């Protein structure tokens, strides 16, 4: 085990902490868009997929990369678009309620 992995675990733990702080403040009203939006963010594996699909590798490794890329892109594009579609529908009442 070298220093890198310790450093990565630090990053992971702090990011989890930030995540908890941020998400507890999201009201239930927005939980569905939060889920689909965070789902799109988890498509960040697209970065790994791009390297697997494009690097000088054996053919099978590149095909795995291609599969990863398709899956991740569905996640990213679909997730962000559907979240935007939902959030567009949330509107405030025009007439003030008495």
């Amino acid at each position, binding site marked *: 085990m070298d220093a890198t992995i310790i450093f990565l675990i630090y*990053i992971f733990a702090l990011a989890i902490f930030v995540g908890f702080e941020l998400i507890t403040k999201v009201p239930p009203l927005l939980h569905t868009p939060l889920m689909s939006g965070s789902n799109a963010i988890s498509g960040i*594996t*697209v970065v790994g*997929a791009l390297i697997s699909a494009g690097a000088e590798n054996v053919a099978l490794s590149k095909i795995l990369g291609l599969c990863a890329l398709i899956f991740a892109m569905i996640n990213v594009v*679909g997730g962000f678009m559907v*979240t935007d579609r939902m959030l567009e529908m949330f509107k405030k009442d025009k007439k003030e309620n008495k």
Partner: protein
Amino acid sequence: MSELLDSKQIIVYFVYLIASFFFILGLKKLGSPKTARRGNQFAMIGMLLAIVMTLLNEQILDYTYIIAGLIVGGAIGAVVAKKVQMTSMPEMVALFNGFGGGSSTFVAYSEYMRVSSEATAPANDVTISIVLSVLIGTVTFFGSLIAFAKLQGIMRGAPITFKGQQVVNALGLVAIAVLGYMLTGDYTQEQYLLIIIAISTLLGILAVIPIGGADMPVVISLLNSYSGLAAAATGFVLSNNMLIIAGALVGASGLILTQIMCKAMNRSLANVLFAAVGTDDSTGTSTRGDRSKVTEYTPEDAAMVFEAASSILIVPGYGLAVSQAQHIVHELATMLQDRNIKVRYAIHPVAGRMPGHMNVLLAEANVPYDLLYEMDEINEEFQNTDLALILGANDVVNPAARTDKDSPLYGMPILNVDYAKSVMIVKRSLSPGFAGVDNPLFYADKTMMLFGDAKDMMTAVVKELKDS
């Protein structure tokens, strides 16, 4: 990381850092309906930066697969996002969670093939990261497929259990730990990794089949968390901080939503995952109540009750979405508001089939979000309300949860509709809800029952109000 970085790599690392900022800022802005759309756009910018910067990476030599993957994946995602019905949002999120997990497995396996073809053995922590990434990714993928099948009705919603299921799960995890350890000993043994994938597949399926249809909101939230953790695990495989940060954020988000859902159903996570108490949402074989004991109203009577009220709280349940009654309910609410009647909506956390689902369904019908109140905000208000109108909800308004210690619902937080001056329930029959428990509210003196489909009934009431 001890080697010196050239200037290009330094730029890549800093752009990844900026992308991480955008993800955090995006999630922060998702916390308020005013800024939520901007927040989602911030996250998109972060993702765009990450993708563009990676494409400039010098490791990438061949763009044919990349272009194919970007176009095919992007197009599928775009079409699904455009076409999906708001009622089907749980299915879509379940499926997308799975794709995220699947992607992690593929990347980890591809990375394994790269490092195992090199002359020097990979560091143990790289191998362990690969095993973890494959495990979480595969469990997420197959678990999500099962969740999708249950939600879509391809598979029955009823829990599927067998004796010794827990033992099988535990043995599976032990086997993976042992195989992972053996792989660090001899990294060229590719079959170990393949067996790990096979066991993970089994674990993913076994994790979701014992969970009933009614508990699906918990499962989707949990799988959401797993998909984030899978991305973070991939970050460990590639030593990429941005993946770890983004994955951890999603992992934390899913965990919080899981916790909220469990609390709203008064269940512990262990109880949801292992107890298999959820019933099939499609069977209606339970005993039915006696109709002669209730006060039955017609839409004409109901219209008069509405006109006489000065404040109304609408309690929507999933039955409302099933009959697509959101639009007509909004029309009714607007008509009543024009007559100076105060109309608000009270939303239980588990109304709908995923966290926050009911809010989206009502927003789609143009109901303004500032009329939607969550349970804790509105529960005090029922006692000052003339009429509580319950549409397709049952267990979440069952007073037995508060009073009857023997009820399976006991302790579950409910909307206190029985405190309202009068209650109107629109329902097809007296059949009980998911929990299979009779609802004493149906037989209360102040309760009016309107038997029928929510949409038909509300349409009739609106017509009546227009004519009067």
